[in-house]
């Protein structure tokens, strides 16, 4: 089985960049925008993870022939 690590790295990258962006915004006094950035990044990551989990459930269905 080939494990695909790229998603993990992508999520890590998004996390790091969102953290830096929010720090920069906070330094400039735009605290509300900083919060929004974090929230947006969180939602994006959440969607990606949910899609992957959905794939997992589909696979489980296939394995046990729940059609």
């Amino acid at each position, binding site marked *: 089985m080939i494990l695909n690590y790229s998603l993990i790295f*992508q999520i890590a*990258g*998004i996390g790091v*960049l*969102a953290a*830096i*962006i929010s720090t*920069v*915004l906070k*330094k*400039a*006094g*735009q605290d509300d925008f900083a919060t929004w950035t974090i929230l947006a990044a969180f939602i*994006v990551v959440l969607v990606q993870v949910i899609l992957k989990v959905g794939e997992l459930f589909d696979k489980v269905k296939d394995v046990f022939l729940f059609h």
Partner: protein
Amino acid sequence: MKWIGAVFILFATSWFGFYFAKQLTDRTKQIRAWKLTLQSLEAEIMYSQLPLQDACRRIADQMNGRLREFLLHFSDVLANGAESTKLAWMECLEHYKKNVSLKQKDLEILMQFGETLGMHDKHSQQKQIVLALRHLEREEQEALENHQKYDRMAKTLGVLTGLLLIILLI
């Protein structure tokens, strides 16, 4: 192919960030140049008492960039027999504002100043210039604050948003 696209995205967003930062810097610089112009104009009116078009031409020699163009244009319009100083000023300002970083409210100050130009004797005119200078000073203060606050932020955000987009799309 993917990497070329990534470079393009990074380049575009960085350029946008730097453009925004430059806009902030330029606004301060241009307001400063305008203050200098008005001060020179005050001196010309009070002491050398040249006609307005000659005074503008003389001040234009000390300036550069768009402001110089504006002053030369203004003095040309006046020399060619404009309907009124106010209209000439408005027309030139309309021309001038196309490619500058000044905000609408900065231009508003200049427009209001233009309405008084050539309507009064030299002492009232001096008062009007001092008033316009006060307003410009306030705007300069604000522009400077914005510059210090957002300059670094705009640059960093430009680059970082590019990186974020690349990671999202890859």
